[in-house]
């Protein structure tokens, strides 16, 4: 009866819902959580475990019910939440939390080792290596498989002052001090170097690439700048002024979202051109047989697609829009003319 219903809840999230085993994990953590703090207010504990106070009280009542019948009946856990304050008088064998599973130790250790590679986190490297050592120690044998997963971060940190700290470290200083920065920034889509003042907000590291998020005073909008495209960087003696209504980008929703104003570009790719589908977010990818693909990309600016088509050569071609294919053809013809071939 129970196994099936419990299984149905799997994967629906932690805390509020979840399976009996998820809840058991929480109960086993709850007792030591309180024991280690002497007493905890209901609201604080509920927040720490990501559940409502009502659910928390239900959990506490369940713990209170623990009972062993043989050889002699007794209740090993004694707790109270009178006046909204949780205290545990007797917790016996579950006063300490359960050790970390391989997955749990790995998730944290892999993330910590990645953080240690981030250019802007130089100042925290010491704290990082201490936490890594402590966690490895606490996890014991469960820590070992974590070395078989790694997330690389772009090693090239962008320009800083010669011999001085890299762009990441400079930008973190600027963010901490609330200072405006001046960037020389290369835009590959337009093959342009741009100069702009930016009020820095945060550094984001998404899938191994480091970005500065900031209020661009030229665009008068929140913009992302890839650190490896910053060719020159100066921290200005001017306080940053990020407008109050500047919305930070919701990293968890994805950095780049299509807009209605985007142009749809259809490409046909040979088997050797399939990398395009891995490399760029595609609206659709269709197999055409024999390893060939048709992909549709959406972009606010088609200039980079011209560059892509020139790079693809015989690995792929633009099908639509026809004007874009024509523009690429003209690009190639003009370039060939420079070689005396037209």
């Amino acid at each position, binding site marked *: 009866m129970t196994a099936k219903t419990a299984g149905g809840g799997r994967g629906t999230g932690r805390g509020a819902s979840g399976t009996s*085993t998820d809840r058991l994990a929480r109960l086993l953590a709850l007792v030591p959580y309180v024991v280690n703090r002497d007493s905890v207010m209901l609201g604080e504990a509920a927040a720490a475990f990501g559940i409502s106070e009502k659910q928390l009280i239900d959990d506490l009542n369940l713990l209170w019910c623990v009972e062993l019948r043989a050889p002699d009946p007794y209740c090993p856990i004694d707790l109270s939440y009178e006046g909204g304050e949780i205290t545990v008088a007797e917790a016996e064998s579950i006063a300490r*939390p359960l050790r970390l599973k391989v*997955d749990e130790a790995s998730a944290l250790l892999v993330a910590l080792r990645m953080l240690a590679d981030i250019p802007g986190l130089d100042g925290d490297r010491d704290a990082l290596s201490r936490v890594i050592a402590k966690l490895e120690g606490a996890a014991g044998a469960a820590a070992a498989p974590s070395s078989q997963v790694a997330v690389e971060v772009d090693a090239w940190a962008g320009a800083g002052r010669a011999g001085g700290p890299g762009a990441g470290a400079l930008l973190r200083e600027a963010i901490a001090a609330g200072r405006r920065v001046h960037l020389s920034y290369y835009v590959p889509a337009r093959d342009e170097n741009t100069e702009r003042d930016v009020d820095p907000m945060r550094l984001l590291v*998404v*899938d191994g690439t480091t970005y500065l998020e900031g209020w661009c005073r030229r665009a008068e909008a929140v913009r992302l700048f890839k650190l490896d495209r910053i060719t020159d960087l100066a921290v200005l003696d001017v306080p940053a002024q990020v407008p109050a209504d500047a919305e930070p980008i919701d990293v968890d929703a994805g950095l780049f979202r299509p807009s209605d104003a985007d142009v749809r570009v259809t490409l046909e790719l040979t088997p050797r051109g399939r990398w395009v589908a891995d490399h760029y977010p595609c609206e659709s990818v269709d197999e055409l047989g024999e390893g060939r693909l048709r992909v549709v990309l959406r972009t606010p600016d088609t200039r980079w697609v011209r560059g892509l088509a020139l790079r693809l050569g015989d690995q792929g071609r633009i099908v639509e829009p026809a004007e874009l294919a024509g523009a690429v053809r003209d690009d190639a013809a003009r370039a060939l003319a420079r070689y005396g071939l037209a």
Partner: protein
Amino acid sequence: MSRRKTERLLNLVVCLLATRRYLTAEQIRRAVPGYPDAGEAFKRMFERDKEELRELGIPLEVGSDLDGGGGDEIGYRIPPQDYELPDVHLTPDEAAVLGLAARVWQRASMAEAASGALLKLRAAGVETDSGTAVGIEPRVDAGEPAFTALWEAVRDRRPVAFSYQGIGRTSAARRHLEPWGVVSRRGRWYVAGHDRDRDEERVFRLSRIVGEVVPDGPPGTVTVPEGVDVRRLAFDRSEPVTERRPATVLLRSGAAQGPRRWARDVRPAREEGWDEAVLTFRDVDWFAPYLARFADDLVVLDPPDLREAVIHQLKSVLAGNGDGEGAGR
């Protein structure tokens, strides 16, 4: 979710932690409320419960002690020293970076595992909510469909099989792999290991795996060779490194900004409106398409093989992107 089941499992854990000797199934049935009378129903329920405890990572020890009440019958216990998380004390700066690490994973199994770990560390007394703003938000997406299956295979040292559509291949092929590690580079996931079909080290990109990754052997049968560093394995392939060569190019003034970032000896060319510069490259097949991307803002003067490769590249662009009438010109 069944409250009764949670309650029974909780009682079971407390009971097995409290005992120093091994308890037989029958002793457990009598001590822990919630089990039915002895019989098939109890056996099945107890089997499932043991499985659930193991899934939670609870170390269930099986054995027998003749001195205990169980005689030589098989019994169970949870040794507290194997169950308990050792003491962890973190300073505020350590707690701050730990909190940051717990937020790194987006989606899927790794995100859940990270919050599970954080829960236990909080229970051990660690305060992860230090309020210290680190000013940096790292995220890693492990939402690739094949990721979870491959990580579990690596963790359990288990061979796998999958269909793989390689670049330049006209169809997907079945591959058999002893996975050694999973690595992300530039936001893309790769699995490295011993390819059983080719009998050598291989790297596969997760996004090119078609369909499910399935186990292809029992757990514990993959051995990662001593000294293998998965990152090295995945990327520092000992490809024959071709020598770096200089290329002389013309760059249109004020344009071709990309190559200018790497160029040396940039000087005005004889022709007005152009600069001459030197770029270094290794691989013509990679470099020619990169240069072609700058169209008529860049002209290769030397070496001849690079110049020819760029011309060839531009000709195929011209042929491919025509509207039919001009194709093949």
